[in-house]
C-alpha cells in the first residue's frame, strides 16, 4: 500500500509515522509538503502527523488546516480515502472541519508526556479492526492541547454512532467523556491524540500501535 505523510513547518512526528508505515507496508511513504496542492496518485492512506505546525500560532492546527494540501485531503477524504491524524494531526483535522469538535488546552494546563491506557471503543473501523472492542492498550501521549471539546448533542451523536474509536482509561487531559480518538461519519477519517506510531516494536516498550497500521493495510489492501 502506498501512503502519504503530510509535512508542515513544525511537524516533528512525520519521520516516526513514516518509519511505522514503511515497516508495516514495506513501502516508503511519500513525504508531501504542505504547499503541494495534490496528493500522489494511488495512495491508500494519508497520515497527518504530530508536532507543532506553525508553532501552534493562533490555535493548535489552525494555520496548517488552511494549507494548500488540505483541499486535496478534504476532497480525497470525501471520496472515502482513509486519513489518519495523530496528535497535532488530530488538531489539524478538527480545525479543517474533517472531524467534529475542538482540542483545547489540557485541563491541568500541563504538558502530558507519558504512556497512557486506552480502551478500544470501536473495533469495526478500518483503523481498529485488529483490536477487540473493549481491549485495553498502552499508547504514548505527548501534548498540551488534547482536551477534546464538543457540544452535548455532538458528543451524544458520536457515542450513538460508534464514532469514538479510543477512550482514555485514566484521567489524562480533561477530554469530554475521556475521548482520545474520533472517527468521521463515514468512518474513513480518524483523529487521535495518542501516538500509535511510537509503539510499533519491542524496543519502543510495546507494539500496541502496530496493529492499527496492520489493520489499515489489511482493510485498505496491499
Amino acid at each position, binding site marked *: 500500500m502506498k501512503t502519504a505523510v503530510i509535512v508542515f513547518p513544525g511537524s516533528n512526528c512525520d519521520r516516526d509515522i513514516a518509519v511505522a508505515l514503511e515497516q508495516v507496508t514495506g513501502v516508503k511513504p511519500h513525504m508531501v509538503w504542505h504547499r503541494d496542492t495534490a496528493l500522489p496518485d494511488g495512495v491508500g492512506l494519508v497520515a497527518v502527523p504530530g508536532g507543532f505546525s506553525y508553532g501552534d500560532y493562533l490555535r493548535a492546527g489552525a494555520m496548517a488546516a488552511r494549507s494548500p494540501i488540505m483541499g486535496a485531503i478534504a476532497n480525497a477524504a470525501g471520496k472515502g480515502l482513509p486519513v489518519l491524524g495523530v496528535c497535532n494531526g488530530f488538531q489539524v483535522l478538527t480545525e479543517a472541519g474533517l472531524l467534529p469538535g*475542538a482540542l483545547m488546552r489540557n485541563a*491541568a494546563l500541563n504538558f502530558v508526556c507519558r504512556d497512557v491506557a486506552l480502551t478500544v471503543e470501536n473495533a469495526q473501523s478500518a483503523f481498529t479492526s485488529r483490536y477487540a472492542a473493549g481491549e485495553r492498550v498502552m499508547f504514548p501521549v505527548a501534548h498540551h492541547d488534547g482536551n477534546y*471539546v464538543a457540544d452535548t448533542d455532538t458528543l451524544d451523536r458520536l457515542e450513538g454512532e460508534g464514532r469514538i474509536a479510543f477512550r482514555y482509561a485514566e484521567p489524562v487531559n480533561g477530554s469530554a467523556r475521556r475521548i482520545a480518538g474520533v472517527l468521521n461519519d463515514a468512518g474513513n477519517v480518524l483523529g487521535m491524540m495518542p501516538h500509535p506510531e511510537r509503539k510499533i516494536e519491542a524496543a519502543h516498550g510495546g507494539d500496541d500501535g502496530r496493529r492499527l497500521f496492520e489493520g489499515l493495510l489489511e482493510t485498505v489492501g496491499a
Partner: protein
Amino acid sequence: MKLRIHVTLKAGVLDPQGKAIEHALAGLGFAGVNGARVGKLIELDVADSTTDADIDAMCRQLLANTVIENYRVERA
C-alpha cells in the same frame, strides 16, 4: 481601516487558563474575583473597501474557531 477582532470562548466552554488566572488572583490576595476567561484580541489593518461580509468570512474561516469561540468586530 483598523479593526479589532475580539475572540472569546463561548459560554459553557471550560477555560483552564481562566481558572488558573482566577486562582492566581486569589493567591495574590484579591478577594471577590468571581471568574476569569481568556480570549484574544487581533488587530487588523484592512483596505477601506473591505466589506462586512469579507470581515465576517475572515473571522469564521480562520480567526475564530466557531466550535468553541465567538467573535466581535470593533472598528477603531
